[in-house]
């Protein structure tokens, strides 16, 4: 897989259960599959298989990184692909406005001096 493929990130984020899982890992990093199942079960009626399938999608998009600790597999949120997506893709549209505001801010501040 290649992370420059933003499609994987957008697809992974386009699902409520997967966003719920990311929120859970944001709140508490290093959770096991079992712990994530419990969290999902509190919100939806989903099988263990379903949760594990959603985790695979998140891993493929590099939004979740698995670390082995003893015999347990712990899951961590990886915020970097979202940052990369922002810097490469969203920034393209916001940059001219941000630039203009920065220049305006500098001018206003210099005026005060």
């Amino acid at each position: 897989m290649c992370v420059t493929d933003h499609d994987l990130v957008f697809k992974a984020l386009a699902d409520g259960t997967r966003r719920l899982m990311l929120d859970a890992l944001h709140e508490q990093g290093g959770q096991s599959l079992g712990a994530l199942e419990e969290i999902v079960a509190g919100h939806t009626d989903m099988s263990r298989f379903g949760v594990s399938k959603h985790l695979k999608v998140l891993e493929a998009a590099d939004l979740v990184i698995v670390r082995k600790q003893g015999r347990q597999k712990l899951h961590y949120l990886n915020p970097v692909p979202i940052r990369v997506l922002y810097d490469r893709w969203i920034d393209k549209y916001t940059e001219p406005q941000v630039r203009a505001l920065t220049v305006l801010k500098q001018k206003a501040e210099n005026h005060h001096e």
Partner: protein
Amino acid sequence: MNDLTTQVHGIYIDAPAEKVWAALTSSEYSNRYGYGGDIEMDLVPGGAFRHLTTDVMKKMGMGDVAVTGTVVEADPPNKLVLDWSAVWHDEPPSRLTYEIVEGPSGLTRVTLTHELPQSPQTAKDVAGNGDAENGGGGWPWDLSSLKTLLETGKPMTTAGA
């Protein structure tokens, strides 16, 4: 309360592992991504590490050094472990581990693990709050800008000294 005591940040970079290693350990690259500033690193266990401040940081009132540390393990170009302290917080050193693995396709996987069980303020800063224009980008933004520099040869708009 978000748990930030162990942070895992991963990125794929289309560059050889040696180049990634050089970017993480030398001033040749360090002024063109992230927060900028020279790097001084004695790449042996117990060796000293200093990330120096940029002119912008000095204007903000910082001294000559932004980050101090000690090299715990240096295995070029695959593994670098540091005891890492942000000078702007009075907190115990945290453990920073870079794992760098070049895949068969030439893409290099960089995984940064930052363990900060006793450094909550530092943990909050390095996690990033999204406001990169004002220095709040943290590791996600730092790594994103490293990727841009190594893949395009040019610094990212918001990054560098």
